[in-house]
């Protein structure tokens, strides 16, 4: 059983507090992704769990036991570092088998486990090389292999794929997913790539400035972002967000452009309230070129000028001018559009989000 519980966990460097009392319960065998912008405290949190950073305040439990004061070696974890952290003076084989050697396992078992991990990660031909003779991606895989070989209760990954090229990254993503179903360990995975977080994890933890903004399943944080920050952070291209003021049955934007107040929010806002309106690119599309997945739709039609287009092959991102800004929309079955052309747009307001302009929290309730 390897649950991991963070109870009001605080990290201070001198007088500067960088993690502000976060709470999180990771279930046994769960895959949890920590995401957030650079400098929000993801690595710091992970390093506290690993035991590489002292915990300034709060409690950390692994398997129901408080481990605040245990050294890393007593926590039965393994960690893949952002910068590989391989042992430069050891071969790939020695790197991967090092933890088992320290644990005084028989040589035969070490060899078997290293070979097995090397198989999964396609490292077989590189086993006798030193890290300096490997490419970045190969080093990354060795770092991964070193973690796998240990068969720990908890895996900690700190942006393990950040240095790989796009193709290898996709490939390794699949490997990690397979690995998780195979090893049945608890995994805490730090990344700032939300695609990784969405595709890999059971639950996503979105962090910002040392706070947790939202914890939820990928689908949940995508469909029901709890704050304006999460709304803008999750999803690619990001959600269109703009400030507006509630008027009688409509939302008035700064430039005077307006939209009807989405029905689901009628009861939740008052006239004169400042809000942030949000709409995903999937829910605003050139009429006839979109696809609303929701059961109920609430389409609002509008003519908007095209500013630029970004063709991606099977779809095109169309930037249209609204409230003097470019709103991004996703156009399926694309057809060529000219800049400046006014086109009919469909906005599915049943999928719209409203956040309080003051607190940034959702008004969905």
């Amino acid at each position, binding site marked *: 059983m390897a649950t991991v519980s963070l109870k009001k966990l605080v990290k201070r460097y001198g007088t500067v507090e960088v993690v502000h009392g976060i709470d999180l319960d990771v279930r046994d065998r769960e895959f949890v992704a920590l995401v957030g912008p650079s400098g929000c405290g993801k690595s710091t949190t992970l390093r506290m769990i690993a035991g590489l950073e002292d915990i300034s305040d709060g409690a950390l439990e692994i398997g129901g036991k408080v481990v605040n004061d245990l050294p890393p*070696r007593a926590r039965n974890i393994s960690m893949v570092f952002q910068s590989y952290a391989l042992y430069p003076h050891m071969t790939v084989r020695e790197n991967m088998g090092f933890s088992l050697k320290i644990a005084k396992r028989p040589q035969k078992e070490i060899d078997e486990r290293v070979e097995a991990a090397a198989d999964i990660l396609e490292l077989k031909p590189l086993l006798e090389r030193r890290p300096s003779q490997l490419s970045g991606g190969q080093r990354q895989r060795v770092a991964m292999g070193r973690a796998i070989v240990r068969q720990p209760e908890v895996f900690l990954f700190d942006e393990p794929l950040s240095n790989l090229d796009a193709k290898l990254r996709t490939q390794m993503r699949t490997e990690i997913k397979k690995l998780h179903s195979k090893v049945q360990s608890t995994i805490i995975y730090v990344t700032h790539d939300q695609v990784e977080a969405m595709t890999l994890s059971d639950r996503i933890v979105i962090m910002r400035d040392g706070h947790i903004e939202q914890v939820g399943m990928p689908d949940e944080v995508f469909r029901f972002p709890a704050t304006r920050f999460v709304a803008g952070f999750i999803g690619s291209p990001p959600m269109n967000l703009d400030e507006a003021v509630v008027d009688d049955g409509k939302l008035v934007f700064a430039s005077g452009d307006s939209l009807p107040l989405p029905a689901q929010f009628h009861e939740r806002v008052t006239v004169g309230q400042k809000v942030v309106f949000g709409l995903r690119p999937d829910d605003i599309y050139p009429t006839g070129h979109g696809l609303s997945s929701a059961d109920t739709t609430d389409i609002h039609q509008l003519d908007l000028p095209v500013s630029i287009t970004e063709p991606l092959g099977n779809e095109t991102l169309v930037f249209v001018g609204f409230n003097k800004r470019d709103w991004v929309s996703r156009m399926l079955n694309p057809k060529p559009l000219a800049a400046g052309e006014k086109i009919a747009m469909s906005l599915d307001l049943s999928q719209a989000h409203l956040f309080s302009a003051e607190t940034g929290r959702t008004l969905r309730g």
Partner: protein
Amino acid sequence: MKLRLPAPILLLLPAIIVLVAVIVLPLLLSFYSSFTPFRLTRPETLWTFIGLRNYINVLSNWDFWVAFGRTILLLTIALNAEMFLGLGLAMLVNKATHGQRLLRTLMMFPMMFSPVLVGFQFKFMFNDNIGLVNNALQSLGLTDQAIPWLINGNLALFSIIVAEVWSSTSVFAILILAGLLAMPQEPVEAARVDGCTPWQTFRYVTWPFIMPFAFIAMTIRSLDVARAYDIVKIMTDGGPAGRTELLWTLVGRTAYSDARMGVANAMAYVSIVLSILFTVYFFRKLAAARQQIGAEW
């Protein structure tokens, strides 16, 4: 036609002339004189060529080999002691969170003393009547005798080693500290997560990293100790009864007290071979250690 030297050579000429005058000529002269029975008191002997006779003399001279062996003994003990102490010091200073700069400066202090002063200082400290060491031992009640530090042959060599170690441990400490500071922290952290105790982390990760730095210090210090002269000259002058005679004190005595310059030069050249061997040995080790950690320098 006037002979015109190319500009680079012309510009370097002053330096070349100085170097030739102060280094190359004396070197050649001393090398030549090692093949003559040259005595300072009889300058004309410089012109008698006697082939390898001096070298044969030196190599079959028991005193020379004793001094040679003693130098190696001193070198081995001093270098190992300095290595361990320097490593310990460097690790401690590396751990210090405050005032590391000050500590680093303090650590260099012994290096700022001229070896002659170090010699006098320890000669005084180890003096059997008025020395600090005996005084301290007696005050602490550890002994009530005046231990003859510089008078007993073995103790005298020990005292010299203490002086050497005191004055030069910082060479190791500084170089190893440089290694520790330059060392990436991630492998150490990886080792901790991989289950290493602090000792295992040091043994398997930290040590391989700082080994090249230790070898550099070893090279420097082996050259230093192999030509140890000043401290010994001041503290015991090779005594008592030649029990602390080292290679270079022997060379010095032969050259100036006995005035047998030719023989002394032959001894010196044989000793230099020793230094070269040490240098080659440690550089080999250094290259291997660097390759091991995949160093990029």
